[in-house]
């Protein structure tokens, strides 16, 4: 029986634009697959029960908890992690830059999930109010900052992204 339980599942998926083909044990969580197999340790694991948000990644365009998905389910999917956000390490994504500039992090444990969740918010709602930012980030727990600088960072990112938007388009 043990052999059956550990029988590998073959998956083909794209992570941050790169194609991978791997055989995974069914119980391997997507978060552990990203961290241990692909070495993408930017995705953090806090609670492993969906509550803290530190494992947030983008699967086929939607934010999801990578601690509540099995790698075996990802055949054919496209996954984006925090590592895929900046195409050049010297040119951060506006949300990353804003967190840097406005002290939106201390230990950094919650940051990958915060940044990906904030980015998803701004793509849908480019001018969120403070309350909307807090509501969108309610599922991401931070034990360090007290959230004030995180909210400031998201507001600042919204402004940069609006001013970067191509002329003639609404921000």
């Amino acid at each position, binding site marked *: *029986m043990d052999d059956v339980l550990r029988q590998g599942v073959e998956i083909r998926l794209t992570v941050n634009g790169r194609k991978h083909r791997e055989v995974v044990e*069914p119980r391997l969580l997507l978060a552990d697959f990203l961290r241990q197999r692909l070495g993408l340790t930017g995705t953090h694991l806090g609670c*492993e*029960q969906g509550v803290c948000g530190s494992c947030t990644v983008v699967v086929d365009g*939607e*934010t999801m*908890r990578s*601690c509540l998905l099995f790698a*075996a389910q990802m055949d054919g999917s496209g996954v984006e992690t925090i590592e895929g956000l900046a195409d050049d390490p010297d040119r951060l994504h506006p949300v990353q830059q804003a967190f840097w500039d406005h002290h939106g992090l201390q230990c950094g444990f919650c940051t990958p999930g915060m940044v990906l969740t904030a980015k998803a918010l701004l793509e849908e709602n480019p001018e969120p109010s403070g309350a909307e930012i807090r509501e969108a980030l309610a*599922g991401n727990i931070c034990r360090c900052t007290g959230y004030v600088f995180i909210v400031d960072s998201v507001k600042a990112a919204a402004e940069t992204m609006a001013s970067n938007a191509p002329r003639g388009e609404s921000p």
Partner: protein
Amino acid sequence: MKPAAFAYCAPRTLEEAISLLDEHGYDAKLLAGGQSLVPLMNLRLARPTVLVDINRVDGLAFVESGDEVVRIGAMTRHHTVATSSEIRGASPLLSHAAGHIGYRAIRHRGTLGGSLAHADPASELPCVAVTQSATVRVTGSAGERTIRADELFLAEMTTTLAPDEIVTSVAIPRIRPDEGWGFREFVRKVGDFAVVMAAALLRVADGRVASARLGLGGAEGTPRRVTEAEQALVGSVLGAETIEKAARVAAEAVEPTSDIHGSADYRRRLVHAMTRRALQDALGRLEAGHG
């Protein structure tokens, strides 16, 4: 923690999924959105040895508008229930309630069928399903049957589904233009499970309440309609006084659970407050002339 080892199957058809469940009995578990099951597996509170993933089964995620009901496939994600204009047009109450489930990342993955099958007393969709007298279609090795929502929930986390039965769709009656609805829940923080929630659906004719539905979730082990309060409303002139009376009747009618999230007495007070506010919202929508 990490889940215990299991064998993984991802069938493409409902028949295959049912035969896997039939073959493995209580050792097997269906995996839908995984937003309730996987936390339990990570905590090793659930240790299925065979996981039957139905995310690749065709034909389980759909929205079908009819004259009387909107039929929603079991694998429809909470986010779709909350945002689909077809669902919102048929039952704004259901859409609104779905928007209260957890956080965005949870709603992107969790499913309507999973929420009903999981039967957490504090979940929104079972409460609305019972309030609106939805019907749930299920298929198992013995064939297909339709269950009334109030007959699906047996006790906390327990349904009348057989181990080899799969929820395939849910039919939600359309809310008519002359009905007003309200939904209120009490949470400590946005996205938390509600401590208590109330859903109300009212129709007024000739100045008096012609029909009333009031459902509660989180108060007891299963969601239920509070017929005592509904009867108190029918025939009366809807206003602050009748609403207050109905809320009082509801608070007296429940036998609330007591746990770490709230004592029975606290829940009783919440039933009063949430019922009053849900009814006020329903009245407000009736006065504004849209359900």
